[in-house]
C-alpha cells in the first residue's frame, strides 16, 4: 500500500535538508529544458518565417522569364529578349494540365498622381488571376475582370503602401488617379502582404489590366508582349510536371529545335523555398537534439545526487525497512524525490526557455516561436528523465540488507 501524500511530504523534507544541492541538481534540468525550448523556438521561428515567405510570394508558384540574347558574342542577361507574349500565357492556361492559373505581367515604374499628391511605384499590368497566383486577397472593393482585360479598361487596384502615400486616411475606391497622365479609376485595394524575401515592400505596387498597360502605359513595338508569366501549379506535387509541360509547350510555340537553347527560363520559386523550409526543419531537429543532450546530462546529475543521497541515508533506509517498509515503499520514496527534482526543474526550465527565447528574439532579432508542443515535450521528457535516472538509485536502496543498513554509521 503506497501513501502518496506522505511520500511526497517525506520527499520534500529530504530535498529541503540539502537546499543548495537540490537547487544545483535542478539547475541541470532547468538548463536542459530551457535549452530544448529555446532551440526549438528558434527553429520553429525560422521555419515559420520561411513558410510565410512562401505564402507571400504565392504557393506553388512558377515564373517564366524571357531568355538571354547573344549579340555579336556579347551575352545579355536574362530577360533581354522580349519573347513571351499574351499568346504564350493563354496557351499555358489552355494546354498545361498541371497548371491552375496563369497571370501575364507587363510592368514598369511610373509616377502616380492623385490630387496634389504623387508617388512613384511599380505598375503591374496583369490579369485578374494574378490575385489567385500570388494568393493575394483584396481588403476592399473588387478586382478587375477578364472583361476589363479584353476591353483594356482604365481601372486599377492599389497596394496598401500606395494608398497610404496618396490617400492617407481617405477611402480611395471610386477615386481617379493619373498614371503617366492617363486617368485610372480605383476599383479595389490589395490586402497588406509585407516584405518579400528580398526585403522589398510588396505593397508598394499598383495593378492594372495587362492590355491597358500595353496600350496606354508601356507601349512596345511588339503588340501582346509581356515581361513575365506567372503560373500557379495545381498542387505542390504538380510543380515538376507543370514545369515540364510549360517547357515543352513553349519550345514548340517558339519553334526551338532539339539542339537549340531555350529563349526563356522557367523558375520554380516554391521548390527552392521548400528546400529552404526542409533544411530549417532539419536544423530545428538538430538544435533540439543537441539541447536534449544537456537535458540528459541534467538527468545524470540527478542520478549522481540520488546515489549520494542513498548512501548518506543508509541508516534511515534500514530503520524504515525494520519498521516494515516494503521494496516498493523504499523505491517510490527515492523515485519520487528524483521526480520532484526533475519536474520542478522542468517547470523552471519552461520559464527559462520562454524568457531566453524572448531575449533571443529581442537582441538577435530572430523570430522565435515557443510552441505548446515543445513545452509539453520538454516537460514530459524531464519527467521521464527523473523516473529513468531516479530508478537505479531507488533500486539500489531497496536492495539494501536491513541489518547492514541499521549498522551503517
Amino acid at each position, binding site marked *: 500500500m503506497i501513501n502518496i501524500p506522505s511520500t511526497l511530504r517525506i520527499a520534500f523534507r529530504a530535498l529541503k535538508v540539502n537546499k543548495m544541492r537540490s537547487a544545483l541538481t535542478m539547475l541541470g534540468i532547468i538548463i536542459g529544458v530551457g535549452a530544448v525550448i529555446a532551440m526549438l523556438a528558434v527553429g520553429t521561428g525560422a521555419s515559420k518565417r520561411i513558410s510565410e515567405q512562401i505564402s507571400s510570394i504565392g504557393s506553388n508558384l512558377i515564373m517564366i522569364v524571357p531568355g538571354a540574347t547573344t549579340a555579336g558574342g556579347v551575352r545579355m542577361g536574362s530577360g533581354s529578349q522580349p519573347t513571351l507574349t499574351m499568346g504564350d500565357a493563354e496557351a499555358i492556361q489552355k494546354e498545361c494540365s498541371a497548371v491552375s492559373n496563369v497571370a501575364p505581367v507587363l510592368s514598369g515604374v511610373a509616377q502616380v498622381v492623385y490630387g496634389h499628391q504623387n508617388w512613384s511605384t511599380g505598375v503591374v499590368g496583369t490579369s485578374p488571376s494574378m490575385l489567385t497566383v500570388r494568393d493575394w486577397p483584396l481588403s476592399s472593393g473588387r478586382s478587375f475582370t477578364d472583361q476589363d482585360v479584353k476591353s483594356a479598361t482604365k481601372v486599377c487596384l492599389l497596394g496598401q503602401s500606395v494608398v497610404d502615400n496618396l490617400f492617407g486616411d481617405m477611402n480611395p475606391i471610386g477615386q481617379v488617379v493619373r498614371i503617366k497622365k492617363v486617368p485610372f479609376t480605383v476599383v479595389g485595394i490589395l490586402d497588406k502582404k509585407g516584405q518579400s524575401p528580398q526585403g522589398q515592400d510588396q505593397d508598394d505596387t499598383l495593378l492594372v489590366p495587362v492590355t491597358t498597360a500595353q496600350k496606354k502605359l508601356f507601349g512596345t513595338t511588339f503588340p501582346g508582349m509581356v515581361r513575365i508569366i506567372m503560373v500557379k501549379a495545381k498542387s505542390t506535387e504538380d510543380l515538376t510536371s507543370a514545369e515540364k509541360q510549360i517547357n515543352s509547350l513553349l519550345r514548340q510555340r517558339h519553334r526551338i529545335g532539339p539542339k537549340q537553347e531555350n529563349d526563356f527560363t522557367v523558375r520554380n520559386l516554391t521548390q527552392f523555398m521548400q528546400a529552404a523550409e526542409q533544411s530549417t526543419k532539419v536544423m530545428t531537429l538538430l538544435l533540439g537534439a543537441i539541447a536534449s543532450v544537456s537535458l540528459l546530462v541534467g538527468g545524470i546529475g540527478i542520478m549522481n545526487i540520488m546515489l549520494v543521497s542513498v548512501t548518506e541515508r543508509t541508516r534511515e533506509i534500514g530503520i524504515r525497512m*525494520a*519498521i516494515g517498509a516494503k521494496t516498493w515503499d523504499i523505491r517510490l520514496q527515492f523515485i519520487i524525490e528524483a521526480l520532484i527534482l526533475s519536474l520542478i526543474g522542468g517547470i523552471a526550465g519552461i520559464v527559462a526557455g520562454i524568457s531566453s527565447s524572448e531575449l533571443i528574439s529581442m537582441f538577435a532579432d530572430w523570430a522565435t516561436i515557443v510552441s505548446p508542443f515543445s513545452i509539453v515535450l520538454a516537460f514530459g521528457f524531464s519527467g521521464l528523465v527523473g523516473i529513468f535516472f531516479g530508478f537505479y538509485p531507488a533500486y539500489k536502496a531497496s536492495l539494501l540488507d536491513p541489518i547492514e543498513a541499521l549498522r551503517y554509521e
Partner: protein
Amino acid sequence: MALIEAKEITKIYRISDIQVKALRDVSVTIEKGEFVAVMGPSGSGKSTFMNILGCLDKPTSGEYLLENIHIGNLDRDELAAIRNKKIGFVFQGFNLLPRTSAIENVELPLLYDGIPARDRKEKALEALKNVGLEGRGDHHPNQLSGGQQQRVAIARALVNNAPIILADEPTGNLDSKTSAEIMELFIKLNTQSDITVVLVTHENDIADYSRRIIRFLDGRIISDEKKEKR
C-alpha cells in the same frame, strides 16, 4: 501454542572463504507474555539470534515459527509485513528518523501498513501517551533527551499493536536513573498489556528486571533460567 518457537536454528555466515557459525542448533520456545533477557559476550551469537527473531534475517537451517507462521518460507516483502505487524524494535541508538517530529516517527509503522492519516495520528498520540510523552509529539529528536528519544522509539514499537517488543541494549546509551525508568516502562507494558519483551543486555542489573535469562556462548545457549521474582 507458543508465540516464538525456534527449532535447531543454525546460522552460517560466509566471509570470503571462511565460514562462521554464528548459531549452532539453537532451540528456544517463548510464550506470550514472557519477559526475557538475552545475555552473552560479544560474538556469542545473541545479536544473530535477535536478528532472526526480528525477521530481519533467515536461519541457514532449522525452523522458526512466529505465531505458527513459518518465517523461513517468506520473501522480503512478506518479512517486512511481519515486522510491521508483529514486532516492535527498540535499539540502543534509538534509531529515530532525524528532522522528523516524534509523532511522525511513531506514525511510521502505520504509514507502511496503509492506515489512513487521521487514524495514524490518533493511534500515535495514544502510543505517545502510553510512554508518558503526552504533548511532546511535535518535538524533533534533537530537542529530546536520550530517555525521551527512547520512549518515542518504544511508542513506535507499540503503535501497531505488535505482540512482541525486541529491544537491543535499550539502555546502553542512558544513565542509570533513566535506564531504570525505561525498564519500568517495559515492565508496565509487559504486565499491563501482556506484551512479550525480549531484550539483549550486558548488564546484570538490567537482566534482573526480566523473569527469564537466556545466556549465549559461541553460538549456543549455555543456560536458560526462569525466576519467579524480579
